[in-house]
């Protein structure tokens, strides 16, 4: 489990950027969506998610905006910036090359 936690930690940025690729999301939604898409495999703690979101925002890869819902409730929605989209594309390309290389080794034809 410790190895998996390390793996998640090393890839948190790309996972979060991927989540935001389709639509802007707020923190709680991201946690739920990550669990849903990974079929419960990935669980991102609140204590990890928000500092990472703030770091990505400082790096101008995402931008956060407050929205007030009809019921008066407020949420901070994050969306990708152009720099964030470029970073995601780079990281996805790197990941695809890395995983195919790993597969060539662990699953030889």
């Amino acid at each position, binding site marked *: 489990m410790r190895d998996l936690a390390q793996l998640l930690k090393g890839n948190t940025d790309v996972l979060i950027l991927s989540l935001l690729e389709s639509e802007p999301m707020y*923190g*709680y939604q991201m946690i739920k969506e990550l669990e849903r898409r990974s079929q419960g495999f990935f669980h991102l*703690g*609140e*204590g*990890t998610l*928000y*500092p*990472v979101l*703030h*770091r990505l925002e*400082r*790096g101008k890869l995402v931008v956060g905006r407050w929205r007030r819902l009809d019921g008066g*409730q*407020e*949420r*901070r929605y994050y969306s990708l910036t152009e720099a964030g989209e470029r970073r995601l594309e780079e990281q996805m390309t790197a990941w695809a090359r890395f995983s195919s290389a790993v597969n060539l080794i662990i699953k030889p034809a």
Partner: protein
Amino acid sequence: MAADLKSYIERVRARLDLGTQEEDEIVRELETHVEERLAELERNGLERDRALRQMLPRLGRPQALAREFRQAHSQATWHDGLTAAAAFLLVAALYATNLWSYPPAVTGVAALVVAVTLYGLWHRRPPWFYPWAGLALTLLAFCGYFAFVLLARAAQPMADGQFEALTVLGFAGALLYMPLALIIVASCIRAASRRDWLDASLMLSPTAPVVVWLAALHQHGGIYEAPSMAAADSALAMTFVLMAVAAALFVRAGTRTLKLATLIGAATIALLAISAVDGAQISLEVLIARTVLLFGFLFSPALLDMIPAHPFGPTAKQD
């Protein structure tokens, strides 16, 4: 339990040490997140108190959460690293050129160190702040040395029954200075540790070599015997050059493990410097004792970090 949530949020805020607007944004986001999560747990049939008990541990220790946010909001650049290193390079230059015995140069450097430290405090302690603050604290050690000399000089005539007003005043002033300086140093360490004990340790790093150098100066006959201190001066100058490199790496390091490794490196340099300043051959026992003392001193802020701010308070168990 609502009080626990409020207390938790307040403890995070107290340790953020960012601008008011940034702190408000973080707290607002955390509160909306917690409310949303609580509402879901309540919809699933949990009572609010139980839901809150389940929710709070998921957020982690307030101290750790605040540290993560702070790091996210204060990522250091190489410019920060160089500004941090400049503090130690300034001292290295002072010793390498033997200008420390030239009062206008010392006064100029001291004024610059204090000014930069105050500027850093005004700007809410940016990443480069702690080496400068550490040097400002070593000024207290310098004044402490002069207080010690004054004390020793005033004690002799007083022991002989001469109680001139100036002598008594000097003695009392020097005697008062010591606890006052210790209180100031302890308060600074405490304040720095509240943010991160690693920063406090970096702040303490210049103190040990400087104190040992002052002891060597005293053994060599005091401030008027400057030429005989050339070897110790060179050793101290080299130490501060290496510590400048360590400070730049510390500030730029992205993880706490790397910062800790850099600090251990700086402490080892300081230990070698102490031996070089001392000059004499030392036994293994003395070396071990010095190592324990130095590392104990440098990493004492880590112990402070373990002590809760309000050990008997109702919420101490969460931290």
